[in-house]
């Protein structure tokens, strides 16, 4: 096909779908010690493969190259905690959302940051390159010095090692980090607008997008995401966040 | 009988004329010594004789006939250089037999037999399997000489073959050449070893500025040089203290 992307039929014919996911974003997309992908996004990815009747090939992506992966057709779908934004809509097509998200800030308990106003110029705010968090501060707090990382693993390590005063990211992510790391607190649980996370396909691939839309509708009917939450997220966030995260 | 001859040969490097309208005959069985100051064109002359250098004008004849092909000429006119010219990746025997085998298509066995007997003659039979870097400078030059003998050339050209050798080794190499002279080999030799030149030469050719300045019998040349230029040249080889306290 000249446009490069693959329709549902193409994928079925090929027998394998390529889905871009995170491999270092616990608990949404990560690799366990046996080398197997696990997480909230991965459940959905596997289910899509099952319902299409094809094998799933998971491709590890990073925040900054998710759009490139679609544009260069290295994957058919991005299922890497991809927040819907207007800028991104110009570049890719989003299907129906499957998760709520907003931004949040985590910082050391010793020196909790509760607001981004009055930021101390000598402190660095950690963000991940190519995320909505980066866009948000760049637009709303252009004076905050940023320290950008390209992977979740590096960003978290840096925060732990004291290389930044706080980390701004999806609130789901910062919450999970605070829960799994001693000495860190989420000082700002929500920031900016409420956003949605949705699967994305290459711009113009309406055929695949339509299929995913239908899939998500029917998955909602059978309460798939609720079960997914229980299976992959509950152990981190507890029951109480289910209503905030999962889209009904 | 003339084997090689240069007739009206002119050789230039770019604008610089090394020689102009030069004539030279190399006769069978004769040992010709070419001497002259540095830069006078001795090496260039030898290199023209086996066509490693193209000439600009004139003719080179081999047995009074124009040259068929350069490789044919070079097969028959062997040349040994100042040094460093054994092939470092081959042992002594392979150095000697490579060309006989690939150029003259001789069998390895026959070529090796000849090579070994030549090595024996110059006292290096036990070095047949050695590599060049395992030999002394004098040994290397002796191998280089017998390597060119392996091709059965009619004429041998030697260009300062002892110039980069220790004095001790000069003798061992020059003795090999003396031997070849005794045997009647046709040779053209460029050297700075005047004692050797005087002993080995049948004919001395003194060149300067690309011209043959003087030519003659060695004893005449060394004891009574005719030209002023040659006298001056030989003067350089003697020393005198002016006063002694």
């Amino acid at each position: 096909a000249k446009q490069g992307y693959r329709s549902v039929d193409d994928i079925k014919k090929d027998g394998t779908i390529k889905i871009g996911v995170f491999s270092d974003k616990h608990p949404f997309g990560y690799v366990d010690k046996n080398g197997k992908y696990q997480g909230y996004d991965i459940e959905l990815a596997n289910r899509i493969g099952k319902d299409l009747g094809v094998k799933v090939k998971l491709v590890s992506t990073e925040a900054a190259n998710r759009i490139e992966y679609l544009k260069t057709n290295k994957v058919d779908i991005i299922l890497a905690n991809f927040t819907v934004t207007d800028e991104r809509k110009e570049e890719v097509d989003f299907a129906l959302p499957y998760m709520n998200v907003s931004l949040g800030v985590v910082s050391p308990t010793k020196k909790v940051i509760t607001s981004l106003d009055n930021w101390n110029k000598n402190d660095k705010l950690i963000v991940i390159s190519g995320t909505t968090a980066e866009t948000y501060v760049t637009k709303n707090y252009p004076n905050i010095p940023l320290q950008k990382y390209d992977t979740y693993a590096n960003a978290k390590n840096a925060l732990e090692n004291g290389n930044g005063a706080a980390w701004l990211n999806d609130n789901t992510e910062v919450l999970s980090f605070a829960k799994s790391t001693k000495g860190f607190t989420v000082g700002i649980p929500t920031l900016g607008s409420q956003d949605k996370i949705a699967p994305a396909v290459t711009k113009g691939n309406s055929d695949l997008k339509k299929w995913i839309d239908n899939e998500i509708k029917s998955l909602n009917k059978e309460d798939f995401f609720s079960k997914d939450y229980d299976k992959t997220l509950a152990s981190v966030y507890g029951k109480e966040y289910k209503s905030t995260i999962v889209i009904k | 009988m003339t084997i090689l001859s240069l007739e009206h040969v002119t050789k230039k490097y770019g604008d610089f004329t090394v020689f102009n309208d030069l004539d030279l005959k190399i006769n069978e069985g004769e040992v010709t010594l070419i001497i002259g100051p540095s830069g006078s064109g001795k090496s260039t002359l030898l290199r023209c004789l086996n066509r490693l250098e193209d000439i600009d004008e004139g003719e080179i004849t081999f047995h009074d006939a124009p040259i068929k092909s350069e490789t044919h000429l070079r097969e028959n006119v062997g040349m040994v250089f100042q040094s460093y010219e054994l092939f470092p990746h081959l042992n002594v025997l392979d150095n000697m037999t490579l060309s006989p085998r690939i150029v003259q298509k001789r069998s390895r066995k026959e070529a090796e037999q000849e090579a070994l007997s030549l090595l024996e003659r110059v006292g290096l039979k036990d070095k047949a399997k050695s590599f060049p870097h395992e030999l002394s400078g004098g040994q290397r030059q002796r191998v280089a000489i017998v390597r060119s003998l392996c091709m059965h050339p009619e004429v041998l050209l030697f260009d300062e073959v002892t110039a980069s050798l220790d004095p001790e080794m000069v003798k061992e190499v020059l003795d090999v050449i003396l031997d070849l002279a005794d045997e009647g080999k046709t040779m053209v030799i460029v050297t700075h070893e005047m004692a050797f030149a005087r002993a080995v030469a049948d004919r001395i050719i003194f060149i300067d500025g690309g011209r043959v300045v003087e030519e003659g019998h060695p004893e005449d040349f060394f004891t009574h040089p005719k030209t002023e230029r040659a006298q001056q040249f030989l003067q350089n080889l003697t020393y005198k203290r002016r006063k002694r306290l």
Partner: protein
Amino acid sequence: MRVDVILEYLPLYLKAALLSAGIGLSSIVLAILIGMIASMILYYRIPFLKRIISFYVEVSRNTPLMIQLFFIYYGLPKIGIATSPLVCGIVGLSFLGGGYMCESIRGGLESISESQVESAMALGMNKKQTMRYVILPQALRASLSGLVANMIFMLKETSVLSAVSLMDLMFTAKDLIGLYYKTTEALFLLVVFYLLILTPVILLGHLAERRLTYGKMGV
């Protein structure tokens, strides 16, 4: 390719280029210092120290900068040695470059023939004077082409610094691709800026080599 996009990105790249070049140059200075000291230790065969230096040279030359940086920046803080990205970048690049510089300078030192040392001594110079006035000036000239090659190599290696969140050229390009998806423009500027940084060094290197080396050393 859109010119307005290029113009818009230009200031960001300029800033990044300054960072890349700044880290590159300060690391080069440090690496040469490390290289000089290390090569002296090897040249004079100082017992024990020379073993440590040889080990250092082997390690720095046989591991990638990327891993060296990861280990310094993400690994070492776990045992209490924390560094800022800038310090880590300079330390890592100097650590790498020092090994290469040491090898080049040592090659230069060893290329100075024994007879040079002896003629200095025969003129009554002591060891220190011989090193200062005779060996070192020649050795540095002899290793010049190696040193220049190492400088170019080190400047190229600055591209890896993005791994420790330094906003160098590489990271800027990647970041802009991730933020605004203008891949062609971002990559074009990346190539242009690396050419801008490296070409002068290469030209200066050629110039210095022509000015400072004599046809054949010592002959």
